[in-house]
């Protein structure tokens, strides 16, 4: 369970990115974080594992405080939090296997990681994860030899190699085509339910967010302006998050979805 309390972040430039943000995410819950560019979505998930240092407020993972940890303990905390990135953020010149194994860096000594002598069970788990995401035959390829969708699946395997207790996902589909985006979102959601993992997914695409998440938090200028179920996300809420616009396309997608649901239920 993740608990965020009164989190605020003001950058050195004076920009207030987050303003008194509070919420909790239960185990197994997948939360979509939506909002316009610059609303603080990236800052928020980076404040959770303190890649960005919050100005005030607190973050707890399973009742252990993340905020206030010393540098050394922060490293031990970060290895419990898997992160998946926009543009994949794989180390391009390392192999797929090295990228996945880098999920164990927090657990092995520098010398072992330098010599690439990981414990056998770590390697076994990496193979199992690559098999799970369908890339086991590419283990020895360099990361930059893969396509976008394949790279993102390596990114997912790297995060899972940590055996995380929480997933932070930053715009996982921003550089992928619509079909691959859906495959990646489905994979992330399936994995979260398999492992009962809580996850926060930053996402630009409202239709995708509604299709794949169980709960949506809307950020606007660093404040939470919506927190509820995907089907509560109507015209007025979208206007509250993004500003005035004709939302009929997204509304149309919503009614089609519910129609499909009706059919499947019937």
């Amino acid at each position: 369970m993740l608990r965020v309390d009164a989190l605020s972040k003001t950058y050195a430039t004076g920009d207030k990115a987050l303003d008194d943000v509070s919420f909790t995410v239960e185990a197994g819950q997948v939360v979509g974080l939506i909002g316009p560019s610059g609303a603080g979505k990236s800052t928020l998930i980076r404040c959770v594992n303190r890649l960005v240092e919050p100005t005030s407020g607190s973050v707890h993972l399973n009742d252990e405080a993340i905020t206030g940890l010393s540098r050394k303990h922060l490293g031990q905390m970060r290895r419990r939090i898997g992160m998946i990135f926009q543009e994949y953020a794989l180390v391009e010149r390392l192999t797929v296997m090295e990228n996945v194994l880098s999920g164990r860096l927090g657990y092995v000594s520098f010398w072992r990681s330098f010599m690439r002598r990981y414990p056998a069970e770590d390697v076994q788990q990496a193979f199992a994860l690559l098999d799970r995401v369908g890339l086991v035959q590419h283990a020895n390829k360099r990361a930059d030899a893969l396509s976008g969708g394949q790279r993102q699946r390596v990114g997912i395997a790297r995060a899972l190699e940590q055996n995380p207790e929480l997933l932070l996902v930053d715009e996982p589909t921003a550089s992928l085509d619509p079909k691959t985006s859906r495959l990646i979102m489905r994979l992330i959601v399936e994995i979260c339910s398999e492992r009962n993992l809580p996850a926060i997914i930053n996402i630009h695409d409202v239709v995708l967010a509604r299709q794949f998440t169980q709960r949506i938090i809307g950020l606007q200028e660093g404040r939470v302006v919506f927190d509820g179920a995907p089907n509560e996300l109507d015209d007025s809420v979208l206007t509250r998050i993004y500003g005035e616009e004709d939302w009929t396309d997204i509304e149309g997608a919503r009614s089609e979805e519910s129609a499909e649901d009706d059919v499947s239920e019937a």
Partner: protein
Amino acid sequence: MNITENSGVSHLRWQHRTGVQRLALWVGWLLLVAFTVYCWQVMTESTIWAFVADAPRQAADLGSRMVPPKWSYINVLWVPLWHTLNIATLGTMIGVAIAIPVAFLAARNTTPSRFFVRPIALFIIVASRSINSLIWALLLVSIIGPGVLAGVVAIGIRSIGFVAKLLYEAIEETDTAQIEAVTATGASRSQVVNYGILPQIMPSIYGISVFRWDINIRESTILGLVGAGGIGRQLQASLNVLAWPQVTLIFIVILATVVVSEWISAKVRHAII
């Protein structure tokens, strides 16, 4: 809608440069021309025109004494040439080995302290670069005596600054997303360097090293002039006794070596990129 008539911005004029910028540009060109004229004047004042007039005849005279090259002298040159290659190669290795840590201390994103360690690292880089390897060799010959070792150390010291400067710029240009991703796994600082930064700068390390090795081959050919071993000693000896056909052969050998080293350097860099 007719844009030019109906919009309210027709009074606006766009200019590439403001008036002040144009004036500054004009003054800049004026100063450059004035400076050129002045330098030309200084140069012609200290020239003895009788010598210049004589130049074609002198050149022809020297040229006639330099050909043909004394090909048999090549047997004396093999060992010094081998020394020259060793000076360049060992010197480059020493230089790179020291330059890598210096570069990490100098790069803004990896230095342990911007206000204390980074200035020291930058000073090492500047000090190494500001003194020519011939001068380093001169100093080292008087410190550790004449011979190949002085040449190796001179080339090594001179290489540190060059390699470290290019390398720290490469470190500063690394992709932060990859570094962030490695940090997010809970990796230690040294692991972040090993996994996040090093793979990104490996092509630079190879490329810069080979480039510097290629430069060092050229520099090490003249170190012998001050007693630091290699083919330069033969060059100096031949010059001292006015053995021009030998000098010609040494020039040819140096040229051939440099061409080969440039070719190797180009091939290696091409293979990396």
